[in-house]
């Protein structure tokens, strides 16, 4: 297992190098640059040239790339052109919000999706199955930003059950320890802050979970249906094993393998889904920061974020492989 972990981590190096070259070529071909984004209507040719010179953006692309690469080896992602602060600091500040949101979304998707998919398969053709299949279709089809606006309009504006934006209520003055608002409240005993953070999290998390939930319901349903028809399930049932044992040990456990893979990939994709969700709810995570970074052509932030996403995918895939061996001992990890 250790060899697998080391091998996967080493695979990161060529992946990130290749990706960074592609990114640099792509960004260099984009029209515009950070100087005019900084100056807005006030930009003049001379001012833009002065800023580009100060930022080293007038140098050849290979010089800029080499400078960037050297910094990466020093674990320095550079400085955001929008905020003037180190990219690491900006990520560190906003990442906890995105993690909270992502974890909550995937929890909702898994906790609701797997039982729903399982029950839909067990009662194939029944009303629950029809509802789960059509509901998941809607979940996949509905644009995330539209769902966000809809949920906000109903549950925040009309009913007033949840806050309409942000991570914490104004004036709450919660103590910041780790940046994870819910955890901080628990650590400091400010439980109202934790509860406030949960209330702020619900609508964005439900929005973000819509696609993973739909995918997990459909995959679980399909996978369970397939396993239910297997000989070993029939054998287990005819042996007189308790239904609970058959479902848990034989059906669910075997049906979970493709679902776990899907959960892994969906977790990675949540980061990109967070861009829209966080923007609509002004959630203050990495997602909404990336959106403003695209507008501002904030290259260091964009490059850092994309490289970071690549790392997350590699790590999640590794975790998925490790999870296989726990779920199914037949899978040997070397």
């Amino acid at each position, binding site marked *: 297992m250790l060899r697998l972990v080391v091998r996967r981590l080493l695979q990161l190096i060529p992946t990130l190098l290749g990706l960074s070259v592609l990114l640099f070529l792509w960004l260099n071909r984009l029209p515009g640059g950070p100087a005019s*984004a900084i100056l807005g209507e006030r930009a003049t040719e001379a001012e833009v040239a002065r800023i580009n010179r100060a930022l080293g953006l007038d140098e050849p692309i290979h010089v800029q790339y080499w400078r960037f690469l050297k910094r990466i080896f020093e674990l320095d992602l550079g400085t955001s052109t929008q905020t003037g602060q180190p990219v690491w600091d900006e990520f560190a500040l906003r990442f*906890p919000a995105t993690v909270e949101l992502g974890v909550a979304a995937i929890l909702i998707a898994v906790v609701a999706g797997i039982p729903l998919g399982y029950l839909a398969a067990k009662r194939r053709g029944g009303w629950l199955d029809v509802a789960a299949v059509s509901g998941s279709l809607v979940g996949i089809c509905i644009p995330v930003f539209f769902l966000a606006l809809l949920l906000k309009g109903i549950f925040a504006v009309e009913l007033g059950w949840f806050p309409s934006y942000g991570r914490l209520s104004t004036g709450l003055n919660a103590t910041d320890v780790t940046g994870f608002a819910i955890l901080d409240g628990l650590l400091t005993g400010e439980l109202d802050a934790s509860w406030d953070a949960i209330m702020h999290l619900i609508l964005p998390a439900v929005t973000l979970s819509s696609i993973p939930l739909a995918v997990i319901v459909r995959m679980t349903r399909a996978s369970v249906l397939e396993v239910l028809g297997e000989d070993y399930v029939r054998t287990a049932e005819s042996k007189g094993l308790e239904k609970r044992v058959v479902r848990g040990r034989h059906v669910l456990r075997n049906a979970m393998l493709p679902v776990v893979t899907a959960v892994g990939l969906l977790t990675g994709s949540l980061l990109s889904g967070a861009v829209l969700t966080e923007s609509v709810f002004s959630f203050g995570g990495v997602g909404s920061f990336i959106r403003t970074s695209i507008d501002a052509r904030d290259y260091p932030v964009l490059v850092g974020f994309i490289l970071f996403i690549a790392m997350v995918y590699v790590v999640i895939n590794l975790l998925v492989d490790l999870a296989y061996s726990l779920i199914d001992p037949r899978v040997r990890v070397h």
Partner: protein
Amino acid sequence: MRIHKSGAIRAITATVVVGLVATGCASDRDKDGGTSDAKDTFVFAGAGDPGSLDPALASDGETFRVTRQAFEALLEHEPGGSKLVGGLAEKWSSNPAGTVWTFNLRKNVKFHDGEALNAKAVCANYDHWFNWKGTYQSSAVSYYWQTIMGGFAKNEDAEAPKANYKSCTAQDDSTAVIEVNEPSANLPGGFSLQALAIHSPKALQEYAKQDASAKGDAITYPKYSQEAGTVAGTGPYRITKWNKGNKEVSLERFDDYWGEKAKVKNLVFRTIDTEEGRRQALQAGDINGYDLVAPADVKTLSGEGYQVPTRDVFNIFYVGMSQSANPALKKREVRQAISHAIDRENLVKTQLPEGGKAATQFMPDTVAGFSDKVKTYPFDTNKAKDLLKGAGESKLKVDFCYPTEVTRPYMPAPQDMFELMKADLEKAGITVTPKAMKWAPDYLDATEAGSCALHLLGWTGDFNDGYNFIGTWFAGPDKQWGFKDAKVFDAVNAASKITDPNGRTEAYKKANEAIMEYVPGIPVSSSPPAIAFGKNVNPPKVSPLTQENFAEVSFK
């Protein structure tokens, strides 16, 4: 599996318990002052995060909206207007040449850190800016200093503007004298800018210990400007916290303020990026007011009982013409034809909120120097066709750029405005090729480089001087316009050098007349930006310069 099940049950139970305990605890925290009473806190939403808590390092409205509550300049604008009035200086005067400016300071003014305001403090500020080195000399950092006062004691960039600031002398405790090398149209208006607001000398000493640095491909702003604690002004509020993660800047009433104290104890600025999000937050009762209201929302909100005052116009929206991008535009008849082809009145009626005005020149009628005698180009499709025929351009083809994903105070709906103009131009026989571009930086880069034959842009004034409008575009050759016309440039520059306010106003009128005779582009309209407040709020006087003073706010 059994173990997993009991774990899940424990987790669910724990969540429920936390929820119950937390809701129970909430009221305890309220008593401790952890959460504020609703009427003690005014929450206002802007569209973007501030860039810095030191306004001297900023050039954007979102930063100034926050810092304006905590910092004051020597001069200010009258509440709700654009006339210059005393700020930290009760009175001010200049020598006839406009090179020596004397400020008589208010007495008993204290900074948030307890320091007293005096002439030495004022001079410490101006000298601090004048002696900026390194990255501080980048126009991304010190845009307004360079615009108003030129360069620095020692310019490090050959292309930096020449310094116009000469010196600041503390004549006595309450008299500061600022000297400049040459008279400037930017003075005295520039003395009112937030970027030149006065900081505590003690805070300045702390600032001086921290450097802005340009490392790699970006400028790193000094730490003091990114967190509350060091910056100190004299305003009615002091900045207590900048929670970047929660996109929130908190301010608290400054009880030693020299003027009328703020009516609400806590003031919070929050960032909600989208118009829709800001409107919904107001309707949900999560905020008490917000800026940049979409014109389409004005009626809805007013109908629901919210207060949506509109500011007096202080901006101009125009169709720019880049003569270098299309040689046909070098012909005056063609430019005149395009001007006649566009129905400005219809655009104002259908696209702008109530109070919008069709423009006749490149400044709104609220700016001194607006002329009633400029040549006008009323909507007349037939005349446009005749002019094009006369110029031999009956089959004129033009590229017309417009920005996407943006609204500006002067341009609430760029695409809709573009569509109306395109239809007007096509009626006059002009073939229009639409070019949609993302606002920043694509569109701004393209227009600034002069690669868009026709394009939509505008300007919101910083202070009430004609040069702040027409000087921005027509003081010399500019790629955006791609023309050289000595008559226009001379008229604008001559006006800017006149120190007598009345004489300058008259000269600006003449300059406007020269500009509209040449017709380098089409001034289209001035739009009154709307701002929204909750039903239970007594709003501040709204300012055409978007300089609302939130110390005036109270709850009903």
